[in-house]
């Protein structure tokens, strides 16, 4: 035992020295190859003009290209893109489910594509701090027209694109249906049966659930009446304790895991659990299969879940099998802490960053400009009168199977889109299949998104700080925190207040003070951008 330990230590040290030596070599080889910013003098002769107009772009490989269409690297759309944009674009697929792993290996070995993108702002932030990507303000100023105007027209996106005071990740705005995420549903027909109105406060919510249960609307008086769908995005939204957030308390940054409001959130779940308003197994119901089956079978009256396509099949099952069922969206109710909406995404969709080893940034800008200008529309919708026809200016798919095969995967190329400007929630009905059931759902879904967005999600700062120190703290205590919460909810031998105390203790012992300090410094440094 002792011997192996020594071995391990020895070899670790050896590996580290070797690694350091190698890294040293790599550094000296590269030298200061940071691309010099193009001079703003607007010379006619540009050094990039001599280079081939070529750019490589990462993309998610979802395995959605049919064999006869070709592959992600070569198909009808890649040809079309080359022709239309005038840039030789090469796509580098990364598997969707391991995207960051794969990108990291590509980056570490110098194989990464010129344009690297992710939905996750923190990932781009990590690349910025590692010096993998470069600032792009100068390129935009010098070479871009479309993106430049887009940023001017959408000033709220600028802070999201900015890291350390410079633009690193170009992003475009999500349309409304991309913003809405968490949401609740209630059975209006059940409300009518108990003669109550949709709840607007926490007390009313529990009064309604109690009435539902006592009336035995789910079949008997012991059965649960509330279903929950997968993500904790609703409850943590209502109590403003969402795991992605830091909240400001009198100018002080407090992480969502340790804010006072956790007491309310835990208490809410405890109440659901101890009164059997929700399935006793709800914490172990992976993918919420059991609870969603109850909802689709008309056995629950309230769905704490989501809006959008995650639940469409269950909703359609419900409406098909129970013609009398009348599910309606339920707006976020107020709690003792105030009124906060369930989780909504930030307006930024995808972040596109420029690899610092990129050969031809000018070509990259040309490609992205083209994409944001008109390329995205065709890639998202296909060719007019072949794949879609315009109904009141909204593209409607002509043949779903054909679309799925020939166009669906092309949306992956459209990483910048200008669709938020014209999108209205009513468009969803034009886009949905035309059978009555799908139309009914599309209409409900649009309403649900409106309802969900009507109460804003509490976001004290537009985006969260990211640093390895902070994420390490969370990674080390997360399992423990789940355990504490579960104990308070299921066992109930500790009060929510005690649970929060324990959580704070865990947080402190894992280095929470340091994380707080880093977050605070980050906030002081960046708050000027948050306007």
């Amino acid at each position: 035992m002792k011997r192996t330990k020594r071995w391990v230590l020895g070899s670790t040290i050896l590996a580290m020295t070797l690694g350091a030596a190698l890294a040293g070599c790599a550094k000296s080889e590269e030298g200061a190859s940071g691309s010099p910013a193009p001079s703003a003098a607007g010379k006619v002769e540009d050094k990039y003009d001599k280079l081939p107009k070529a750019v490589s772009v990462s993309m998610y490989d979802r395995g959605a290209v049919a064999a006869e269409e070709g592959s992600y690297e070569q198909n009808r759309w890649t040809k079309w893109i080359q022709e239309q944009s005038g840039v030789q674009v090469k796509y580098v697929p990364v598997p969707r489910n391991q995207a960051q792993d794969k990108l990291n290996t590509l980056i570490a070995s110098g194989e990464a594509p010129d344009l690297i993108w992710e939905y996750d702002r923190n990932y781009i932030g990590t690349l910025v701090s590692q010096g993998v990507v470069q600032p792009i303000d100068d390129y935009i100023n010098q070479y871009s027209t479309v993106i430049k105007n887009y940023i001017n027209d959408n000033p709220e996106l600028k802070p999201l694109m900015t890291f350390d005071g410079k633009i690193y990740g170009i992003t475009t705005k999500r349309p409304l249906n991309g913003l809405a995420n968490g949401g609740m549903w209630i059975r209006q027909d059940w409300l009518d049966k108990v003669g109550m109105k949709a709840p607007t406060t926490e007390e009313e919510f529990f009064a309604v659930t109690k009435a539902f249960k006592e009336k035995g609307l789910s079949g008997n008086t012991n059965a649960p009446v509330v279903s929950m769908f997968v993500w904790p995005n609703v409850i943590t939204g209502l109590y403003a304790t969402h795991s992605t957030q830091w909240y400001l308390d009198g100018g002080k940054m407090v992480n969502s895991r340790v804010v006072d409001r956790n007491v309310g959130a835990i208490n809410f779940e405890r109440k659901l659990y101890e009164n059997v308003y929700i399935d006793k197994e709800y914490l172990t119901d992976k993918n919420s299969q059991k609870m969603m089956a109850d909802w689709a079978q008309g056995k629950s009256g309230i769905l704490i879940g989501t809006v959008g396509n995650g639940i469409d099949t269950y909703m359609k099952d419900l409406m098909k099998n129970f013609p009398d069922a009348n599910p309606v969206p339920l707006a976020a109710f107020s709690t003792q802490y105030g009124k906060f909406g369930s989780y909504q995404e930030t307006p930024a969709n995808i972040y596109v960053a420029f690899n610092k080893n990129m050969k031809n940034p000018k070509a990259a800008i040309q490609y992205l400009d083209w994409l944001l200008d008109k390329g995205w529309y065709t890639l998202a919708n296909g060719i007019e009168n072949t794949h879609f026809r315009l109904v009141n200016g909204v593209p409607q798919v002509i043949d779903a199977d054909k679309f799925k095969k020939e166009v669906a995967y092309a949306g992956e190329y459209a990483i910048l889109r200008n669709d938020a400007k014209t999108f209205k929630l009513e468009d969803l009905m034009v886009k949905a299949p035309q059978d009555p059931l799908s139309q009914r759902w599309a209409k409900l879904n649009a309403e649900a998104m409106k309802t969900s967005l009507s109460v804003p999600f509490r976001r004290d700062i537009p985006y969260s700080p990211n640093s390895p120190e902070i994420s390490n703290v969370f990674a080390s205590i997360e399992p423990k925190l789940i355990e504490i919460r579960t104990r308070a909810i299921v066992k109930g031998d500790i009060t929510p207040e005690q649970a929060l105390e324990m959580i704070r203790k865990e947080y402190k012992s894992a280095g929470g003070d340091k994380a707080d300090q880093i977050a605070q410094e980050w906030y002081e440094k960046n708050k000027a951008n948050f306007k």
Partner: protein
Amino acid sequence: MVVWKERVPRLLLYFILGLCTFSTLFPFLNVLAVSLSSGEAIRAGSVSIWPRQFTWDAYRNLIDDGQLFIAMKNTVVMTVVGTSLNMLVTIMAAYPLSKLDLRGRGLVLGMIIFTMLFTGGLIPQFLLIKNLGLMNTYWSLWLSGLLSTYNFFVLKTFFEGLPSELEESAAIDGAKDWVVLVRIVLPLALPVLAALTLFYAVGWWNAYYNVLIFIKSSTQMSLMVKLYQMIDNLDPALLIGDSTNANNALPPEGVRAGAAMLASLPILIIYPFLQKYFVKGVLMGSVKG
């Protein structure tokens, strides 16, 4: 004629064993049933071990666009070539190293054991593969997985256990080392070889992570990677935030179950034929009483 007294414990034993068998079969039957049921039935949670509202939709979705066959072909190539190379190298390494009088034996064994305890890590391996110019070829997988230390030791131990008189008598008759190995030793080692072949083949069949890392081209992916992707495409958690049109009437569970069936089917078909070798082979190389 068996007396009742003896029969009762026996029946009880059968009953208990039957119960055990069923409990191992149940999840499998459930997955099979789910893969053949309609989305509605799955969502309603009414499927146990018999398909409800029978439909091939999940399989149709998986097979429809032809990608699966390409991936299947890739995996077969990977498996056949990979396993052949593995066996070749394992035999050629294990046989000489099973000879106690081989010079430098300790050093070579030490080097092999070292790889069992320490790995370079993903990034160094990646750099190595890249600098060898093997990126995006199957050689990156075949060469980096050429020898499994564990399998090597199983075979080496087996070779060591063979009576040396056999080989000596052949040598006296004028057989060269090669001939001894091919004509005498390998036929005796068939059960072990079959077992190791299966070990290796299953490994290749399930190749996932390395394929993901070393193979870039989307048309060269292995079956497991493809299946994984297809399942992911239906995963609402991944679609949230993604702009994909998730207008998929298919139940993710059904497709997932179908993928699981397709992935395990070939191995299931092969296994019964190899099982007797398998059991023997695993016991070989262990200490004989």
